[in-house]
């Protein structure tokens, strides 16, 4: 793989990881302060929308995603939700995504109140899993493991002949 493609993939991979960590930090602020800033609120709503898109893809597998960014983000969200659902049914995967999205929306609206920690922790666990996966992927792209890739890890954007 050429260096420029490697850098392109690293940026996209790291950005997705940072997105997950940004969600965790914003959710933590909302949980502790019982209110979200305008920036956090908008960001958490956006994150919830991505989880909705992932759930919709699970409901309609043949739906055509228009953007590659949406494809990558929803792919990752689905992988993590499936894994957290213990590789269980699609219904369990969708329920996980729906519940995490609900927590994010409540946080965005400053409506978490005195939520049971369990719900918030489940959402934090979800994004921690995304963040860990992405950090491992970033390292494999930038370090000694360059070039190793699974059959699914096809770059979505290539920029040479």
């Amino acid at each position, binding site marked *: 793989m050429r260096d420029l493609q490697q850098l392109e993939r690293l940026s996209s991979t790291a950005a997705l990881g940072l997105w997950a*960590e940004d969600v965790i*930090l914003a959710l933590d602020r909302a949980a502790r302060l019982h209110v979200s800033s305008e920036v956090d609120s908008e960001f958490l709503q956006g994150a919830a929308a991505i989880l909705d898109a992932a759930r919709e893809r699970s409901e309609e597998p043949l739906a*055509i995603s*228009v953007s590659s960014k949406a494809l990558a983000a929803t792919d990752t969200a689905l992988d993590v939700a499936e894994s957290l659902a213990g590789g269980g049914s699609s219904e369990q995967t969708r329920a996980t995504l729906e519940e995490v999205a609900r927590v994010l929306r409540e946080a965005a609206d400053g409506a978490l109140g005195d939520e049971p920690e369990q719900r918030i922790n489940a959402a934090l666990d979800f994004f921690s899993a995304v963040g860990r996966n992405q950090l491992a992927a970033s390292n494999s792209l*930038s370090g000694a493991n360059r070039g190793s890739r699974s059959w699914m890890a*096809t770059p979505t954007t290539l920029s*040479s002949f």
Partner: protein
Amino acid sequence: MDGNPNDVELLLSSARQEIASLEGDPRFKPFDGKRGEALRDHVLDLIGAAEHRLALDPGTGAPPSVSQSFSRTLRESILMLRAAHAAMPWLAATRSPSVNLGSLYATEECAEILVGKEVDLVVVPDVEFMYSTISWPFLPVTNDTPGFTPRTTRRPIILHYPLSDGDRLLLHPLFAHELGHAAAQQFALVDKVNSALAEDSEFVGALTKAVELMKGTWTVSEVKVTGTILAWLRDWIEELLCDQMAVEVMGPAYLWAFAGFVLPLGYHDKHPAYPPVTVRIRLMLDLLLARGWQPYMEEAAPHISSWLIEVGEDAEQPLSQPYEFLRQQILNASDLLRDTVAAQVGGGTLSPVTAVEEAREASTLLKSLILPVGESYPLEPRSIMLGGWQEAVRAHEDRPEGLVAALSDRRLQDLVGKAMEMSVVSSSWRKP
């Protein structure tokens, strides 16, 4: 455990050191001119995004999962800051460009047509024997940092070319394909094609069948099979859009350069990210035919033209699935691809109506080893390139071997490059 105070202390120090290292690099000093300035600003944006995140320390009272998250944020940021050192040789290259000046001017003209005026073009030789490009290398990180606003608005585009090809001017129409990637990203061209395909019931029906077929082979979920096939299709579409943009702005010179560089790499091969070369050539020929280039191609290179038509006909050969699905859908969507590109390129198309006469003049002058700038007025640089190819094929024979031999003709390519440079300079003087 990661995220504890010692871990965070180490990470914060490391991130700050990486920032200082970038800022202290002598190649990172501010520019006098515009070239390289946007790339430098883009790196500054990456540093700004990292600094923004460094300030989000949740503190010692945070739950362990949140502290760990902050430590991962820092680790991802450090990885990106280290990766940003890749930009230093690019910045150095903008201060002393090594690519032929005439070619650089012509490439800048193509960049303006395909991407727009707000472009910072950085052309850099690379040890890899490949042409490649990246623009906004750190954009996913800089633009998706909540609460941080990047300052760069001018698009930095880095073009890599093989070290050996700095003076192999006849291959430089390939730069237009690379610029196509920046245009495809800037104007979301693949998304436009995808939107149209999503509305096409025949396409959706074929996709359904392909997914059903591959579910049995790949043994993963339907969502993953669909996602993978569509991601591959996206890559094929982008490559073909870039080919079509390059043909629009460079005419047959792109096809001939492509044949000289890419045909030695593959023929009707299956690849997730690249359509077979046969399919690419087929679509290029269809576009050239539609634009009225056929008579000129048959005049300038009749044997090479008929050979390439045969190559294009091999695009009809079936492939194994899911590549067969991709091949068929791409051939079905050729009009859609062409229309998408035509709408994008607009008046920037190189038309045979004006370019053929200029190319003939350039070719005639080159035959006498005269700098082909133009006898009565400066010829358009892209016409000079075309004339360069015409004369190269005449001098080295109208056959595949001649196409390759032309690339070794340094004298001819030096004249082409110098003429393109003089043409741009002369035209600039003539402008009121």
